[in-house]
């Protein structure tokens, strides 16, 4: 009689352990799904923050006296850009505590042109690359690309629509 009861007890313990394992697996799956969702959210937030920082940096560059056109916000002087092409001292000049700017690319949007600017073809070109040879990245912001032009009535400001992108390196925070 006691052997039968013992066996039944063992069976009960087995049943119980199976159920506990099943419940643990179920909870584990739920936790994994939740953790995955949270991780995706954290990654998206990180990318979002970095993107906003970079876009803020673009505005900061456009407003810096080294590039700004006649103190107009969001307007970049194309002549200054052309001069900077050969000024290696300005490499690593712009950035923030977490981001170092490696290169600047300004691409004319309207009127558009794929021709890279050099001393020989400027201003009849549409792509100004500073400290980089790479094509423009996706992260950037719209600017007005301005220069002085002359007409029969004297000089005037000629501004066109352009997109300023930056090539950057993320710095490890100390």
């Amino acid at each position, binding site marked *: 009689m006691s052997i039968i009861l013992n066996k039944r007890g063992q069976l009960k313990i087995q*049943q119980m352990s199976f*159920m506990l394992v099943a*419940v643990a697996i*179920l*909870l584990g799956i*739920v936790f994994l*799904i*939740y953790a995955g*969702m949270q991780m995706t959210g954290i990654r*998206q937030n990180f*990318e*979002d923050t970095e*993107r*906003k920082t970079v*876009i*803020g940096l673009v*505005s900061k560059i456009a407003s810096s006296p080294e590039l700004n056109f006649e103190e*107009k*916000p*969001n*307007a970049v002087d194309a002549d200054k850009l052309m001069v900077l092409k050969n000024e290696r001292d300005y490499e690593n000049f712009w950035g923030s505590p977490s981001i170092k700017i490696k290169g600047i690319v300004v691409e004319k*949007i*309207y009127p*558009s042109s794929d021709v890279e600017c050099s001393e020989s073809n400027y201003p009849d070109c549409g792509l100004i690359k500073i400290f980089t040879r790479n094509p423009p990245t*996706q*992260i950037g*912001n*719209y*600017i*007005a690309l*301005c220069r002085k032009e002359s*007409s*029969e*009535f*004297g000089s*005037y*400001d*000629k*501004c*066109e*629509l*352009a*997109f300023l992108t930056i090539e950057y390196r993320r710095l490890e925070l100390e």
Partner: protein
Amino acid sequence: MRNKGQEEIMGFVLIVAIILIIGVVFLGISLRKGPVEQPLSMEIDSFLSSINYYTTDCEISGRYLSVESLVTKCYEQKSCLDGRTTCEVLAETLEKLVESAYFVAEGGVNQYYKLEVYYNKENPVQIIEEISDFSELDGVCKGIKIYNEKLLNTLDGDKLFMKFEVCKRKSNSDDDVN
């Protein structure tokens, strides 16, 4: 004996059901998001500033006008030196600028755009016809709607505004809405 077995099965089902209910409630709470308050877009703000500096081919008094000056002249119903009306040149220029930057195409990033130049914010009066492309819009904006507006000038008590709105398709990296 059979009753006991049934009781155990019921107990198991009950536990699983309770865990599932807790899980669903928890997921529901974590997935629920409040109404999305659309912040003013930094990208559109820069775009509006940039296009307002754009130098047009409309010449008045020996100088080429910027888009911003053209808006003022259009409000005053002036004409360019070559006889075209400033409103005509403004509409044409803005259309080209917007089309170049926010091209709408099938499967492209932009689902629609809409640009308005108006005065009187409470009861807007458009000084040129709205510039828009809704060709790829099937219903409402399913992506991210970004917009901003810019006060250009105040004339005779009327405030001139330019407002631009874009619907961008959602992609993995496109949380740059501001």
